[in-house]
């Protein structure tokens, strides 16, 4: 049997080095989200002829006077019938510099849970603002959710500039409005761009209609925004490692996250010598293993093993010490509630954190946050569908937690209703107590 990863004929080396950026767009009818996505796909030649024809045909059948690009991403029958986005759709395009994954998410408040799903893995979030309407409740909500999920980069696209005569003053007023409100958020990188999705202004090329705008086009920004430092590569975390004997005779073991391993600071599965790395760990492993003097690289367990170096794995995994994750049974977290059945104090759920599942009880609802005004209601006592609040949780077994702001992978968790098996809550760890 040929070992995996042994081949590789050097084909297509240029494409191979492309980096991937995931971004989320949120919005609803009329704010130009679909037009923007359609336009980006069209201009990067990812909109295919048969897709465009299908959309034109449907638009004509409905008697629309224009081609409704929302039909491209609104993939479900119910969405096309109601003319709204209900669930997140994923779209893909690439330029020579990067591959992009778009999570096209709904803007309506009643689909917040789907927006949060799409945004949870994003590197960047685009908030669309209609230049005629300025900053509205929905734009604030989207920006808040983006910051809550710690999407590292936020782009505020002021759309429909053509309808306000490409007026700089309109744009400046909106940017100021937004900035003063956003100072309440923990957003680190906010970029403003005036665009017209319909006419393509400042999407791919800088627009001649807005000579007063000195910044990059939207696509240029997406291609160049620096994302390599966004992930926490300082603290060693290996939630789901595979252990196994190098000779392949032993069945793979799938250890769960344990306490600090033999190597200082490594939160690894597997015992010392047999740990290998999996998803989310590869970038980190690269960092250490490509260090001068350490040699070698360890992109994924298969590749590494294929080169017959499995037995050296242990030696190569001697990582420098880092801050170990906290170990806690009680902690506080922001939780987005995702089911019709309300959350109440005292309720129990299954909690899934990295590769470990335990039980959790809601000791206290500290407050419910109004996602539009950021007002904290300390009397709430519970959360309804799509509501967000700060909870104090206690778990049946200790979890190895990080604050979500330090590490999205080890600071995020989901709550599962053990009666229905549904995912009912998404949580972000704020801090631990003992």
């Amino acid at each position: 049997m040929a070992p995996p990863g042994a081949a590789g004929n050097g084909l297509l080396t240029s494409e191979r080095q492309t980096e991937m950026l995931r971004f989320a767009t949120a919005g609803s009818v009329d704010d130009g989200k679909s037009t923007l996505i359609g336009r980006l796909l069209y201009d990067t030649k990812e909109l295919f002829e048969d897709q465009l024809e299908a959309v034109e045909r449907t638009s004509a059948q409905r008697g629309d006077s224009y081609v409704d690009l929302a039909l491209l991403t609104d993939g479900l029958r119910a969405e096309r019938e109601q003319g709204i986005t209900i669930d997140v759709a994923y779209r893909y395009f690439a330029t020579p510099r990067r591959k992009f994954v778009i999570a096209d998410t709904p803007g309506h408040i009643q689909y917040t849970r789907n927006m949060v799903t799409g945004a949870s893995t994003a590197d960047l979030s685009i908030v669309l603002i209609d230049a005629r309407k300025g900053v509205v409740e929905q734009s604030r909500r989207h920006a808040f959710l983006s910051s809550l999920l710690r999407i590292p980069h936020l782009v505020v696209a002021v759309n429909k500039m053509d309808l306000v005569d490409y007026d700089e003053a309109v744009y400046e007023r909106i940017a100021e409005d937004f900035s003063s409100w956003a100072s309440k958020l923990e957003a680190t990188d906010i970029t403003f761009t005036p665009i017209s999705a319909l006419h393509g202004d400042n999407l791919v090329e800088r627009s001649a209609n807005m000579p007063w705008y000195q910044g990059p086009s939207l696509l240029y920004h997406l291609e160049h925004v620096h994302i390599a430092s966004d992930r926490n590569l300082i603290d060693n975390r290996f939630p789901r490692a595979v252990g196994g004997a190098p000779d392949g005779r032993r069945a793979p073991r799938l250890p769960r996250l344990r306490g600090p391993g033999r190597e200082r600071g490594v939160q690894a599965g597997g015992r010392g010598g047999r740990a290998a790395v999996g998803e989310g760990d590869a970038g980190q492993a690269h960092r250490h293993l490509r260090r001068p003097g350490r040699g070698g690289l360890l992109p994924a367990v298969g590749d590494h093993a294929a080169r017959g170096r499995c037995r050296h794995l242990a030696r190569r995994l001697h990582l420098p010490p880092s801050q170990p994750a906290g170990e806690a049974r009680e902690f506080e977290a922001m939780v987005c509630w995702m089911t019709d059945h309300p959350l109440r104090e005292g309720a129990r759920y299954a909690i899934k954190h990295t590769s470990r599942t335990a039980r959790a009880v809601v000791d206290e609802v500290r407050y419910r946050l109004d996602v539009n005004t950021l007002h904290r209601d300390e009397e709430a006592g519970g959360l309804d569908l799509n509501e967000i609040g700060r909870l104090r949780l206690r778990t049946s077994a200790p979890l190895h937690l990080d604050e979500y702001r330090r590490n999205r992978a080890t600071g995020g968790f989901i709550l599962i209703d053990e009666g229905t098996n549904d995912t009912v809550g998404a949580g972000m760890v704020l801090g631990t107590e003992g």
Partner: protein
Amino acid sequence: MAYELSHLRTLESEAIHIFREVAAELERPVLLFSGGKDSIVLLRLAEKAFWPARFPFPVMHVDTGHNFPEVIEFRDRRVEELGARLVVASVQESIDSGRVREETGPRASRNRLQTTTLLDAIAEHGFDACFGGARRDEERARAKERIFSFRDDFGQWDPKAQRPELWNLYNGRVRKGEHVRVFPLSNWTELDVWQYIAEEGLAIPPIYFAHEREVFARDGMLYATSDFVELLPEEEPFAASVRYRTVGDMSCTGAVRSDAATLEDVVAEIAATRITERGETRADDRVTEAAMEDRKREGYF
């Protein structure tokens, strides 16, 4: 010092994580393998996720009996190389036992019948997770589907009640009789699949490369002549240099005119194409606006 991974390695890493999650959390997974390019990549990723051990689940092929012989041959060879256990779920057997009724006429296809065969096999073997090679860029209903896609005890997908799926935390909880479809290639595009095949040096069935074949034109597509298709009176077979972009039944998979003889040629052709793979080669998607969504609701791949 490199901090970034290339997009292919990022996708690979995501898929490997998904394989391990399923192996750790579900009792009886199975990998759906058709011998097509996507499931070839899927199989490679499964191999990598557990290397140097063998991946801990069997592979299953839903055999319509109308497959390309080159593909079946490839399937058997690959499975043997891997030493994996192959389960063949046969549509012919479903027909023979009266579970489904064969369509008739020139446009007859076994495409839809596969769903019953698939669901029966899942029930028979008690599989609680099926890895599939579906990608979100293929079709707009698929663009909406989660990586872990829950199926009730009728095998149905409910697009309006999908489990929220955050970060890389997957909820694969099922009760007896229910299962999850798991799509590790969700975020891959057709081009990613080809680049990965090239980079990994993976073997693929010969019909993906240009070859001479007897075909006939129908509804703007070229189909291979075979025992499985009845020609309409006006349809005249002719020889052409073609290749396949997707691999399905001979009765509903169209060929494209091509001279692409090597992987480089194929990738160059894919990178330049202006038509989607399903739009160009799949009759089964052309039935209605929501053909895929409707079939998926019933339990299709």
